């Protein structure tokens, strides 16, 4: 595992270690050239590619047998041209930005409030005992069940949807931060104490870093669930966004827009999760998680 990443700052401990390192480099099987590695990575996508091709063929040639297929199952190429069309009109970009803005704002707020709350609950048993009943009372209510009430409170608009996403993302963030702070290795806490750490120092140097992987897991899950809640919220009531776009396309009978919206939602979810994982690697170089 140490050999995986070359670390130029580490000087070899001795000439013998230097020799051993050279020998290891000489014995190691040569790395395949870059184009080969790229090819093998692309090759993993053959099933997806085949799926898209079959879909395209069924959709295009199927229309000769059943004309309804045009609407029921728009071809991938039709979806691409729909994307181009909407992009040219400038609407697509607005929908994407509106959706991203809402989810990032809501998950950001859930993180800002949920992480400290969860850590405090994990850190102090008494605080946990106080807050737990309220939290466990609200938590089982699905965020979507809040939609009617939240429309009364906030009207139809950004605030209402942000509130729904916030509710969806808040609990996974709190519960994972709680677990992270509660399950800190007792020996690390003791090591900190016996090396002279005061309570506050113990929190910043031991509890917080130990809980960081759980915190990230919580935010990742929150982001995923929040993204789903966003779409659900926008489907029900929204002035814009990808969910609104899908629902609007339904009333216009534009199934190519619907499919485009679905694909974009999936792709953006994937991108957000990828960015989260990159942030994890940056924030925790010591943690090689799965």
């Amino acid at each position, binding site marked *: *595992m*140490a050999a995986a990443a070359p*670390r130029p*700052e*580490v*000087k*070899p*401990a001795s000439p013998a*270690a230097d020799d051993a390192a050279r020998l290891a480099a000489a014995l190691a099987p040569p790395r395949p050239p870059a184009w080969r590695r790229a090819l093998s990575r692309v090759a993993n996508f053959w099933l997806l590619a085949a799926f898209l091709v079959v879909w395209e063929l069924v959709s295009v040639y199927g229309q000769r047998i059943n004309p309804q297929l045009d609407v029921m199952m728009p071809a991938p190429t039709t979806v691409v041209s729909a994307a181009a069309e909407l992009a040219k009109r400038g609407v697509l970009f607005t929908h994407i930005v509106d959706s991203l803005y809402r989810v990032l704002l809501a998950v950001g707020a859930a993180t800002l409030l949920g992480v400290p709350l969860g850590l405090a609950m994990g850190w102090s048993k008494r605080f946990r005992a106080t807050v737990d009943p309220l939290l466990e009372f609200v938590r089982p209510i699905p965020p979507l069940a809040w939609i009617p009430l939240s429309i009364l409170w906030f009207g139809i608009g950004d605030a209402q949807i942000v509130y729904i996403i916030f509710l969806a993302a808040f609990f996974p963030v709190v519960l994972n931060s709680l677990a992270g702070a509660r399950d800190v*290795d007792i*020996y*690390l806490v*003791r*090591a*900190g*104490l*016996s*090396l*002279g*750490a*005061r309570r506050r*120092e113990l929190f910043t*140097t*031991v509890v917080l*870093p*130990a809980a*960081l992987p759980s915190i990230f897991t919580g935010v990742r899950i929150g982001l995923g669930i929040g993204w789903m809640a966003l779409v659900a919220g926008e489907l029900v009531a929204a002035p814009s966004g990808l969910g609104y776009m899908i629902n609007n396309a339904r009333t216009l009978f534009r199934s190519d827009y619907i499919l485009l919206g679905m694909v974009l939602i999936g792709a953006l979810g994937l991108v957000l999760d990828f960015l989260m994982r990159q942030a994890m690697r940056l924030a*925790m*170089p*010591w*943690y*090689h998680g799965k």
Partner: protein
Amino acid sequence: MSARSSQVSVENVSKVHFSLKGEPLLALQDVTFCAENNEFFSIVGPSGCGKTTLLNLLAGFEQPTRGELRVGGELISEPGWERAVVFQEYALFPWYTVRENIRYGLQRKRLPAAEQRRLVDHYVGLVGLRGFESRYPRELSGGMRQRVSIARALAVNPSILLMDEPFGSLDVQTREYMQDELLKIWQREPKTVIFVTHSIDEAIKLSDRIAIMCPRPGRVQEIKRVDFARPRDPTDPAVVRLAAEVKRWLRQQAFAEETEPPGAERALSG
């Protein structure tokens, strides 16, 4: 620095633990001993004899139910760097590099940065980890991790070093090497060492005196002095004789324990 007394005294200490069902268990009963200034004092005994509990009390992680523990005449009330601990499973901070782990206690002591650098450098060299300062613990072998842990404990200049089976999870060669290194360090920078182990050979190789403990309830049965000059040869007839004597004696104890209570107890210890 050496002016402060690092005598460790344990007087009539009893400790009650509670089982998961809430039943009280006597983990330690009337334990009394005194480790002198700069003495290498080992505590041996089978698992469940309370030796780790005793170490936790000395570290200040737990408080005794009855009795008193003192360092240099002062009651132990909480953990502190003057009693640094080396744990069996190292307890290194995974998010800190070797350098940062060793520096941890120095930062808590608010030492000037230059002093911190000097001390870290000194102890990295002392435990032979030069070149590995920027590695994370997970990138090191077990023996190297334990050396970091020892360096981290020594760096704060404790008057007492508490070691809880520090070499228990190392392979035989590494363990012997680490024992030799520990002795060298101890002779160069004398301090009182309280060394918990279940290995009688290890205790005889290292210690000035050995407290032998027995389980149920945990208590000190006997304190033996080891007078042979260091370094000790494990094949020296006198050393072999002492080891055999202690082992035979411990076996008798275990045997007596097993035959006394009825069947269920025997099944547990077998």
